[in-house]
């Protein structure tokens, strides 16, 4: 009661000032006030279908080969089209449908793909999409001077791509050739069933050679420097604010584009996003906030779709540090806290607790990993049964490593990934849990995300936090490979060495070269328990995507792997 009174007193004061502010703003304020009600303008015009989508981070570039952050990719997706498109069928499975290419053929040795371009395919300035543009787009992706951050995903697939990217071969030798104006031939280095999927990714989307050459290095940096052959074109784009799109009137499939104006707003503050959504000002958003989820859901205005993502977050132990040289110490810490409670209490269940590196959607062949994994499923739970007393395990490990037998002497610096309130809360939870259960001491060091990555790079950390997201496929090796010796979280950063590390590297190397599900399953079943028991890194949680789509919007496909291009999306009056 007291709080409410206090608030209303404050607000009375605030209101006076608001009124004054209105007067001070000059006459214009009053005149235009009536016209704008801030509801996105959907109700005003009947034929128009104006859609408002929200983003939580700023868009930094719309050059398709430079987009690496999800927000950049989501903002660029309606503008550029790849040879093929991915969409969801009735069963929720992802399928490939024609994009800029009307059809394709594969040679018998599965090395040569021949794409036939859409005869009506045009850029939003009316120029036709030609094979030359396609070749140019792929050459840009592997141009060492442009250093696309994403195109490594294709560099081992397309012939000569790696050599081009490393500057050893001319771009003209890249395995992407124009046969005639409307036909493109792509030659692979080795047969790879993933090629078509990866070729739909942002960095492989088509740009106009003429337009890009006119823009020079300003391509993709502002609204008039962005143009593609996708269903929409950018009419305005202001950093920190958002962008506005209108349909590309030359798009080959424009019958299926129903939205007449698309606005993407940047809303960094979650309370602003949530309150706008409760006011029905936003049609589509990705929102996952412990405090606000329920409030927004209760409006009943949105369909909520939660999908596990193919991304896992984990603790990283610096194995070079004497404290963590012994695997028992690392495993003891990894087993000393309850992941279910951690995710519930520190994160309000916005994540999914992880007892292995594989998210729930991981697949082996045609089956889900969890169905075929057998004993390797949630292997951390098995380990918890094997070592029921983490503290005893810790003491054992400390003695083996010559660290004495006093756990309180073990003072660990925990480098956080980010400095937000959520990170603070989670770190405080972890500190209390580990200190209570193991008797060690955990010192939290709040660290900006990119500083944390810097320190991991330079091995100047003791215990750190990291994560990896995959949007190309659901095979477990895409995450497991990360800890192989030469990989991203490999020996240079984590310093995991020894026979088991060698064996693990062998396993993950083989995984990446074969496609036989049975053999893959065997490899996974050996690699997973190996890395979990050795614990140079230990999984904590997997993330999920939470898409909210207004109920009067139909045809929107929410899937973590799909970048929305708003084809087939319709908005009806409420």
């Amino acid at each position, binding site marked *: 009661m007291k709080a409410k009174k206090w608030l209303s007193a404050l607000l009375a004061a605030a209101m006076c000032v608001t009124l004054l502010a209105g007067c001070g703003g000059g006459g214009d304020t009053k005149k235009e006030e009536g016209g704008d009600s801030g509801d996105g303008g959907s109700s005003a015009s009947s034929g128009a279908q104006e859609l408002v989508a929200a983003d939580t981070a700023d868009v930094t570039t719309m050059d398709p080969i430079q987009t690496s952050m999800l927000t950049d990719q989501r903002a660029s997706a309606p503008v550029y089209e790849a040879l093929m498109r991915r969409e969801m069928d009735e069963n929720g499975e992802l399928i490939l449908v024609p994009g800029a290419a009307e059809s394709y053929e594969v040679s018998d040795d599965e090395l040569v793909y021949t794409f036939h371009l859409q005869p009506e395919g045009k850029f939003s300035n009316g120029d036709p999409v030609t094979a030359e543009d396609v070749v140019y787009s792929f050459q840009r992706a592997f141009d060492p001077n442009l250093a696309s951050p994403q195109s*490594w995903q294709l560099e081992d697939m397309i012939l000569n791509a790696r050599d081009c990217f490393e500057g050893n071969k001319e771009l003209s030798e890249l395995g992407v050739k124009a046969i005639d104006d409307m036909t493109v031939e792509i030659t692979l280095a080795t047969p790879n069933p993933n090629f078509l999927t990866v070729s739909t990714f942002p960095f492989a989307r088509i740009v106009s050679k003429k337009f890009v050459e006119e823009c020079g290095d300003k391509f993709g940096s502002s609204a008039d420097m962005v143009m593609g052959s996708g269903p929409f074109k950018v009419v305005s784009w202001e*950093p*920190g604010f958002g962008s506005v799109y209108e349909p590309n009137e030359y798009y080959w499939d424009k019958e299926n584009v129903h939205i007449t104006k698309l606005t993407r707003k940047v809303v960094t503050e979650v309370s602003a996003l949530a309150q706008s959504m409760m006011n029905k000002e936003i049609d589509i958003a990705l929102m996952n906030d412990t405090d606000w989820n329920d409030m927004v859901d209760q409006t009943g205005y949105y369909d909520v779709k939660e999908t596990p993502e193919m991304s896992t977050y984990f603790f990283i132990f610096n194995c070079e540090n004497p404290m963590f040289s012994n695997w028992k110490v690392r495993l003891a810490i990894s087993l000393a806290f309850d992941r279910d409670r951690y995710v519930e209490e520190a994160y309000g269940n916005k994540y999914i607790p992880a007892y292995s590196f594989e998210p729930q959607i991981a697949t082996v062949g045609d089956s889900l990993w969890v169905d075929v994994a057998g004993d390797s499923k949630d292997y951390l739970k098995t380990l918890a049964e094997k070592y029921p007393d983490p503290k005893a395990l810790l003491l054992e490990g400390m003695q083996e490593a010559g660290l004495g037998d006093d756990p309180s002497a073990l003072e660990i610096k925990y480098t956080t990934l980010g400095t937000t309130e959520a990170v603070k809360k989670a770190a405080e939870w972890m500190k209390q849990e580990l200190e209570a259960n193991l008797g060690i001491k955990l010192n939290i060091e709040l660290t900006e995300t990119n500083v944390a990555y810097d320190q991991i790079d330079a091995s100047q950390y003791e215990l750190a936090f990291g994560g990896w997201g995959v949007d190309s496929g659901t095979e477990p090796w895409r995450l497991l490979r990360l800890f192989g010796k030469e990989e991203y979280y490999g020996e240079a950063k984590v310093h995991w060495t020894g026979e088991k590390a060698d064996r693990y590297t062998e396993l993950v190397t083989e995984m990446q070269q074969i496609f036989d599900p049975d053999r893959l399953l065997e490899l996974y079943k050996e690699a997973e328990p190996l890395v979990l028991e050795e614990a140079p890194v230990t999984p904590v949680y997997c993330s999920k995507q939470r898409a909210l789509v207004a109920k009067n919007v139909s045809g929107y496909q929410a899937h973590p792997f799909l970048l929305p291009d708003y084809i087939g999306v319709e908005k009806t009056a409420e």
Partner: protein
Amino acid sequence: MGKYILKRFIYAVIALAIIASVSFFLICMKPGDPIVAKVQQLPDSSRQVLIAKYGLDQPMTTRFVEYMKGLIFEGNLGDSIVYEGRTVNMLLKTSAVVSAKIGLIAIAIQVVIGVLLGIIQALNREKLGDQIIRVLVVLAICIPTFVFCALLQYFVAFKWKLAPIMGWGQPIHYVLPVAAYSIPGIATYSKYMRTSTVGVMGEDYIQTAIAKGCSQRRLVFRHILRNAILPIVTMVPVAVGNVFGGSMVIERFFSIPGMGQHYVKAVSDSDPYLILGMAIFFALMYIISLFFVDILYGLVDPRIRITKNAR
């Protein structure tokens, strides 16, 4: 006067050069990798290419010389690394205007209301009106901006629907940010104004004016205001200089594409030339504003003559 301005101009150039150099090396020392801020899952080979592309592998002194060349001869503040293909000049141009619009309106409101409240308080010293305003003023100063923004957004926009929750472009979008920006300033100005008015009222010339039978109105506006406003006058240019920096909290809450958000993001991304460009721009505004303070001192207060000091 002309000589004085020329001297100040030369000083300003020297100060800016020092600021740019000191900031450059400070920013180079700052931990954090802009490439990582841009792309988190980057293979090392691509990373090396990017580092070379932005010249981050060059020695600090080489980069410094290159940067200074561009700055002096072309007025080029460099390129953003995180905002691919955008120059710092471009980013400054769009966002500084946005922040300045909100800030200037807010300052106008702050000064007018603040000065009025201050005088009212001083004239009614120790009476009820004074006490009430005093307490309100303190309340306004006491609430952290982010709390204030949250309250305004929740009640004014969400509950009472008097203004949009967030956004930018229409005049109505100014209401909440300007309100949030104004309140602490009103409090500050009224506080200074009260103190200095009370001081002025003790001076002999006021007693003389009263004795001469000067009207209340004339007394306040001709004698008291002109002398008591000096501290405010010297504060306003600095406040104006600061508005270009924007307010990160307000801009973030109301989703306004201003400088404050960019600056904090640039610092957390360690985007070196963006931070540096903004720092140089802020410094320029700050120095210009201080220059105006000194000019204004002379214009407002008959007792100070700048030309005399400058010799």
